[in-house]
């Protein structure tokens, strides 16, 4: 038998240094991890802060009217700083840099002429300066030139842009409302079936398959709504517009089903089975047990699910952009084309000059949308955590 080779016992100082080195790495790893975590937190703050800062001038009604303020006389070009001139002409830095001095002078002349024209027309209206980004004009109707009565008008391009937000929010309300009316009953019915009626064998299959709807990209949903839902609706109902708010609402309704279903099913299946059995033992029919016992017990969880569904419907962009017709209308008919807030952002942000009134108003819309959906989600989360805490206390 060979003697086991004796391992040299490390001297005390050696083991100490080794430990110290690993402790050193430990400290730096901890610092690095905390740093990255703080970075992610800061990035989140940055998203909110950035949207807020970009929307700020519109929020406080102090948008610099950018290219439309004061005319710069073509003779004074050299006295104006380059950046101001570039903004005045509504050009990007690269465009600006590629123009010669002579071209700039010509462009400035044209700009001054159109400005004078706009001024003249506005003066004909009785106000010397109409700022389309005042809160009054963003929310209240206004008799724009060519209109006899005050109207709610969203018309961001053209000589006299109008940025009334009401048509956009009205469209958003219509689409979200229809989506909830379609999606929530479907999702809750399916959740009731899966949690209360279906046998365990089918439950394990049904739940993931219904949740698979969430895995279908929204652009594919839009494609199907465009190719199948819209023509079917038109043929069956005979509406004048192929693409309208109803198609968008129904498609978004299907898209929010998995979220509402999944959370509602969780809430419904955490209601103890004993309660149902107790209700049945007391003489309730199965429906009465569900309606009087299970649903009230799960009501907070189900309403949280509905709120999350509403938040998703509110922010849904792709489907709505593809099938809603995208016209900012104000009618009562659900079959009118509509334009929602997120879609407006998606369509128009590319065309808006950075820092101009249109850009500011779009960021204002984005800010409002952000606040609204964060509030909805916060409410839903608040309900859920409160419920979880109550349940924890009940258990304990």
């Amino acid at each position: 038998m060979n003697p086991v080779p004796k391992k040299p016992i490390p001297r005390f100082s050696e083991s100490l240094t080794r430990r110290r080195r690993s402790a050193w790495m430990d400290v730096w790893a901890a610092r690095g991890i905390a740093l990255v975590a703080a970075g992610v937190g800061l990035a989140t703050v940055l998203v909110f802060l950035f949207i807020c800062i970009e929307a700020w001038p519109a929020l406080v009604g102090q948008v610099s009217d950018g290219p439309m303020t004061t005319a710069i006389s073509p003779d004074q070009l050299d006295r104006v700083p380059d950046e101001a001139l570039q903004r005045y002409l509504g050009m990007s830095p690269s465009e600006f840099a590629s123009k010669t001095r002579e071209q700039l002078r010509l462009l400035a002349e044209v700009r001054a002429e159109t400005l004078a024209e706009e001024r003249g027309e506005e003066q004909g209206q009785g106000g010397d300066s109409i700022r389309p980004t005042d809160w009054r004009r963003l929310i209240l109707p206004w008799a724009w030139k060519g209109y006899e009565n005050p109207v709610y008008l969203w018309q961001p391009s053209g000589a006299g842009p109008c940025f009334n937000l009401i048509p956009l929010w009205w469209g958003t309300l219509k689409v979200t409302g229809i989506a909830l009316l379609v999606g929530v009953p479907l999702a809750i019915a399916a959740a009731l079936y899966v949690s209360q009626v279906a046998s365990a064998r089918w439950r394990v299959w049904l739940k993931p398959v219904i949740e698979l709807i969430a895995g279908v990209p929204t652009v594919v949903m839009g494609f199907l709504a465009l190719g199948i839902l819209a023509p079917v609706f038109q043929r069956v109902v005979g509406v004048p517009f192929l693409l309208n708010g109803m198609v968008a609402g129904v498609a978004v309704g299907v898209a929010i089903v998995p979220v509402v279903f999944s959370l509602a099913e969780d809430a419904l299946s955490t209601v103890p089975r004993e309660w149902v059995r107790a209700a049945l033992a007391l003489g309730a029919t199965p429906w009465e047990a569900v309606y009087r016992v299970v649903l009230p017990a799960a009501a907070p969880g189900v309403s949280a699910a509905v709120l999350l569904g509403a938040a998703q419907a509110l922010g849904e962009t792709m489907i709505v952009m593809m099938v809603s017709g995208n016209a900012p209308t104000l009618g009562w008919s659900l079959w009118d084309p509509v334009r929602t807030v997120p879609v407006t952002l998606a369509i128009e942000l590319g065309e808006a000059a950075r820092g101009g009134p249109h850009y500011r108003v779009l960021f204002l819309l984005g800010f409002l949308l952000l606040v609204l959906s964060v509030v909805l989600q916060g409410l839903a989360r608040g309900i859920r955590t409160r419920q979880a805490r109550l349940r924890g206390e009940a258990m304990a």
Partner: protein
Amino acid sequence: MIRRIPDWIFPRLTGAVAWALAGLVLSLILGISWMAWPHLSWAAWVGPGGRASNSLDPRSVCLAPLLIGTAARTFLMSLAVIPMGILTAVYLAEYAPSGSRMARTLRWLVQVLAGVPSVIFGLFGLGFFVGVVGGGLDRWNGDLASPVWGRPALLWASLTMALMTVPVVVVATEEALRSVPRDLRVAAIALGATRLQVLMRILLPNALPGIATGVILAIGRASGEVVPLLFTGAAVATQGSVALNERFMDLAYQVFVLSTQSPDPQASRPLLLTSVWALVFLSLLLNAGAAILRSRATPAARDRL
């Protein structure tokens, strides 16, 4: 008798809805495959004559450049989101002092970030990454004539997507880390392992299925998302090169463009159908992968995911 009527209706009605929804998913997958099947020739993948073309003519565009573009942006996004998400979750689950204000705030911020609509990320990507960061880089270089970084590009799109999907990875990783049995951790500490050793040798390997589930879900969410790409860099056609500061072609974006604003809907229909098919299959594969990984996670972790 009348009391019994709801009892008759309730299971049948809800059952019909549940099965209809399940049937909708399955018929959607089968229907798209059936429609795309005749067009899935070799040429649909690599272009007529085996040459991928990037011209605007939809008849000569094929799946290959679209898949490459989507893969490039998803890969770049993963490079950013995996370390960010995992390290944040490690901090929240392991390093933050329990009940610390910083950890609570951070967790709250991540939850809030998860609820931000995708179009807001587009706004942020365009305004901040393209405008502030890219524009700043260009100004720093002093090259104003032609923007190099201050324009929509692959890098900005990927970073925007990473920001959008970071909550998915954080939540999944944190849950996975928390579900590693306490005994393992205690045993490692008792054997003299340092905090970093516990993390690298015990926690992360044991949490790996959960972490991978989160990463796959993040990739799945990002690969089908178009809205943030609208302003941050997707293009209908490119020069064919994939570069950080160039626009890129993208599968989901192509589906959007071809189904709403195709110059010749008849001619672009094969490409549209095959793109939709590829997109649906990609997300199905990712979802199935996530589901399988989830089922392989430890039972404790499975309950929480």
